[in-house]
């Protein structure tokens, strides 16, 4: 069904010269940082915050906020790609590498399910959150991560569509099977590679 073109309407976010190699198919570059949520912003006080790694209902290891802040952290610059078609280049974060966190557990599960305050989940293969590809980020742009953007801490997995980078993350569940998280259960791709334009289930 074709719609008449709205004379003179152009969308804000167009890839500019020199950016093409960095912008996955179907994406537009944005200067802002859109806030998208599936639910209300949780407000867990830091003294109550923990990050846990769980398996089969057991907590294998867990960090309080203070303990988490003492872990080695890295500054990460990444381009991020939202399935709603905006891409933001050169975002700067600070966070603890998932490699650092998973070092503390012995396991051979191939998948994780990130779980969050508010109930959001996203599923990922372990090989996509290791090897320097994923962090639990607590700073954005040199400042503590704002709650509307997922603070105090969110997952950061820039090589996949940004819905995988779960906001308000509180831990990972190790899983033997790849079980769909929130958006994966509602029509979105189980893996989500923006360079293969894997937006929807079956792409």
């Amino acid at each position, binding site marked *: 069904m074709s719609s008449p073109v709205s004379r003179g309407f152009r969308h804000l976010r167009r890839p500019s010269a020199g950016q093409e190699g960095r912008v996955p198919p179907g994406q537009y570059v944005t200067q802002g940082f859109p806030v*998208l*949520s599936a*639910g209300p912003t949780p407000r867990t006080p830091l003294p109550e915050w923990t990050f846990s790694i769980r398996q089969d209902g057991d907590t294998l290891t867990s960090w309080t906020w203070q303990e988490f802040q003492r872990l080695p952290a890295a500054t990460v610059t990444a381009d991020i790609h939202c399935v709603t078609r905006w891409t933001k280049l050169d975002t700067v974060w600070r966070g603890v590498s998932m490699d650092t966190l998973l070092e503390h557990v012995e396991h051979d599960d191939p998948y994780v399910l990130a779980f969050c305050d508010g109930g959001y989940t996203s599923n990922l293969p372990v090989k996509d959150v290791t090897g320097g590809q994923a962090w639990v980020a607590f700073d954005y742009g040199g400042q503590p991560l704002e709650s509307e953007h997922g603070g105090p801490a969110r997952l950061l997995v820039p090589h996949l569509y940004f*819905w995988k980078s779960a906001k308000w993350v509180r831990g990972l569940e190790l899983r033997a099977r790849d079980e769909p998280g929130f*958006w994966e259960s509602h*029509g979105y791709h189980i893996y989500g590679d923006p360079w293969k334009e894997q937006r*929807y289930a079956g792409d």
Partner: protein
Amino acid sequence: MVRLDGNAIGGLLHEVFGADMTDAEATCATCGATSTVAEAAVYLRGPGTVVRCRTCSGVLMVISQIRGVNCVDVRGLTALDPRQGAR
């Protein structure tokens, strides 16, 4: 601002259900509260539209538009009753 209410998705709900549902009564599967769809908490502009119960924040509905098709999950509702009447 990312959080609106059911009024904002009146058109989408009409597409999905074939009728204007803004004044329909929704019963939450999580907490049992009944409320008008127009007053539900709606989260827009994400990968999909999430409609939540104002009492308990439980998910009432999720509507994703996948390749031009509306995919609707109403497992969060135990009832959705349009109001009858001349209007």
